[in-house]
């Protein structure tokens, strides 16, 4: 065979090896990219507080994502209007992972001690103490003799469902004069509302006041009211809805666009209701029965129903928040002497218990429960109950250790 043919054959062999080698590398790259096993596993929906309600339309999902970005990623800077006095630089600073707040951003409200004279310290920086300031400014100091309370931000999941409960349903749960004699006398928070809110369908009025339901004292009418107030009081951001600058007391141009506020409100409305875990476990089921037996469910109403909502997936749905949206007297131990709207200083709105078991994953691995985070475990929180919940607390203390464990497991499953 001529030499050049041998060389050609050898070259061809080498070339084939080279091509095989290159193919091998290419396939390795492809395989690597396709190999989902090298990627972090998807976290189960019931292990997460955040995420949208199932069944949103494409348009609604787009708005949800916009609101998500504003809520979780929009950090206010001095240039964007932060402060000059403030508590937090973003919504997510107080609601990490859409969960409850952490004591490092505990905020203080002050200036109102009764339901008649209103807030007497509005000219001294009330109702919220902005305890942070941008460089060059001094934060507010709590005025002497002002009634005050410390608050942690609540979780924000499932709020759209709570918003869509009809006033009639809230009234139906109330028993202001304890007519049934069970020692529990929840009442709706009738309060004046700002003119920018839109009344919900079949809204009920009483002497020019409406049922308000958001916030620890339930003093905010809806999520627009709550959100505009948070932009203004927490971050020092003025809007078309709340245009008064917290530092100067003067009306400012909006520092956040109305559309942004609406997108955030939409996001809050369409965050899913927390999903339960270990629902069928025997201890959890036993705990659920104990929850009713010792009358926790008298205020922490397990099941509510929405009325009409402009968001289809929220309309006429049964859901399980474990709240009655009513004000209850919680006794002297939880009475800080400060109040809002028409709530007494000892009265607090029943907080929803859904998502309780996931709270610590949004609070740095620890529980900080009740309005100011003073309870560092679920049991602590139960033992701080008083007033209308005094008997339930006593009932809890009379349970065996096993039963207490079952009740806690049930609460952690929410």
């Amino acid at each position: 065979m001529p030499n050049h043919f041998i060389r050609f054959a050898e070259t061809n062999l080498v070339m084939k090896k080279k091509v095989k080698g290159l193919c091998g590398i290419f396939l390795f790259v492809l395989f690597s990219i396709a190999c989902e096993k090298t990627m972090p596993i998807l976290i189960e929906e019931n292990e997460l507080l955040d995420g949208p309600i199932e069944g949103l339309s494409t348009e609604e999902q787009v708005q949800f994502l916009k609101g998500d970005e504003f809520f979780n990623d929009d950090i206010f800077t001095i240039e964007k209007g932060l402060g000059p006095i403030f508590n937090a630089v973003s919504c997510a600073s107080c609601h990490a992972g859409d969960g409850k707040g952490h004591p490092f951003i505990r905020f203080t409200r002050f200036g109102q001690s009764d339901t008649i004279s209103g807030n007497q310290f509005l000219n001294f920086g009330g109702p919220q103490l902005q305890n942070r300031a941008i460089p060059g400014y001094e934060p507010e100091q709590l005025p002497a003799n002002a009634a005050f309370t410390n608050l942690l931000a609540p979780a924000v999941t499932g709020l759209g469902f709570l918003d869509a409960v009809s006033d009639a349903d809230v009234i139906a749960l109330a028993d202001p004069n304890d007519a049934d004699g069970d020692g529990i006398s929840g009442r709706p928070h009738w309060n004046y509302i700002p003119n920018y809110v839109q009344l919900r369908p079949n809204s009920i009025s009483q002497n020019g006041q409406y049922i308000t339901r958001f916030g620890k004292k339930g003093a905010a009418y809806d999520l627009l009211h709550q959100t505009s107030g948070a932009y203004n009081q927490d971050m020092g951001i003025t809007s078309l809805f709340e245009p008064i600058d917290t530092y100067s007391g003067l009306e400012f141009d909006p520092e956040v666009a109305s559309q942004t506020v609406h997108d955030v409100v939409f996001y809050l409305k369409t965050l899913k209701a927390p999903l339960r875990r270990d629902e069928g476990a025997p201890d959890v089921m036993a705990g659920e029965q104990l929850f009713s037996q010792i009358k926790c469910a008298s205020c922490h109403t397990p099941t509510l129903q929405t009325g009409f909502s402009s968001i289809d997936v929220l309309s006429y749905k049964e859901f399980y928040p474990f709240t009655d949206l009513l004000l209850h007297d919680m006794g002297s131990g939880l009475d800080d002497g400060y109040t809002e709207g028409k709530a007494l200083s000892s009265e607090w709105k029943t907080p929803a218990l859904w998502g309780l078991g996931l709270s610590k994953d949004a609070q740095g691995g620890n529980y900080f429960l009740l309005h100011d985070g003073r309870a560092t475990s679920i049991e602590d929180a139960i033992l701080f109950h008083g007033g209308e919940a005094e008997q339930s607390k006593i009932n809890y203390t009379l349970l065996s250790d096993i039963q207490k464990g079952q009740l806690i497991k049930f609460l952690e499953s929410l």
Partner: protein
Amino acid sequence: MKIFSYYEHKIILLSLIFFVGLNLQAQKLDSPILRTAKDTSREKMSMDAVYNRPFLKMGNSPLAVGGYLEANSLYTSENGISEGLSFEARLFTIFMSASITKRIKFLSELEFENGTKEIAIEFAAMDVSFHPMLNFRGGVMMNPIGAFNQNHDGPIWEFVERPTMANQLLPATWSNAGFGLYGKTNKGNWIIGYEAYLTNGFDNSIIDNEEGKTFLLATKDNPDRFASNNSGNPLLTGKIAIKNRNVGELGLSYMGGIYNNFEDGGLTLDNKRRLHVFALDFNTTINTMGTYIVGEYTFIMVDVPLTYTQQYGNKQQGFFIDLVQPIIRRKILDWEKASLNIAARLDYVDWNLGTFKETNTNIGDDLWAITPSIGFRPSSQTVFRLNYRYQWQKDILSNPPTRTAAWLFGFSTYF
């Protein structure tokens, strides 16, 4: 952020066409253009990296040009949710040097990041040599904090991503207008070098930015930093490095000064607020195995007002360490000095060291990552890299970490 105007973009584009043409010329065998190889002798230290690059030079012209290009694919998944496959034109950098006289030289480096998303002059300085131990440098220079800032060219590294510490804690390729001195001397196996510069400094954005954390990198968005000094006080950057030819190189650097605009028009606006950055870097090669090890540690202290939010930390730290092991060094295909390396990097950054005043619990805001890599170098100037990065990042409250994994495949080459 775009720093250049429309007309400046046009000038840059014309320059690019010129450089690309020059490069193509250099590839012809009979071209008068010569490629000056990178000096791989053991005399070089990290501080020499700006000049120690392959350049193209035409005949006896004092002008030499060069650059590098990096591109890669990226497939990421965060907590199990993938954003799909992307392609990044990560970096395109052009450098140009000139020997003006025997003792005066000039070098510039222009970087295009992610296409034209970020265009920056990283380096444009004149050097005057009086003595090996006394050289003057003035213009736009890279502050020599750590070694990566000095020695950051993509083709040198086995990883597509820059070290997190160098890119997210320190401002990678951080450069400023200023003046200073540098020098180097050697005796036996020992080489010692120093650098000391006064430059423009940081600004208030390091504690007022859309990252929601103390973030030195935010200051790179200030286009005025080459024209004026925000605080009116110079930033001091100094570095001492010592190298033993048989052992390796160790560098200690400091960067510090007032960062905030504390007065304006003669009126006091705030207290003078300082930052201090310390860095320790080293690199060594284990001769028996050929294993190359490089690492850097940084500690940062920033005077954050006590009345500000704890979200902006006053202490930060981070490190990275790379281990690179050559596996094959021989002719592969038609490449005479090809090599195949495996490598691994460990990244750590904590943007907010300390504990919450209210709970005495640890402040999170930290990140860990490991990145194994396979790199193929057909020549010393070109690298193909396949990286897999797995990262754990905690929020400020130390909630369960966000897990992110990424496959990156790309190349980086000098031209």
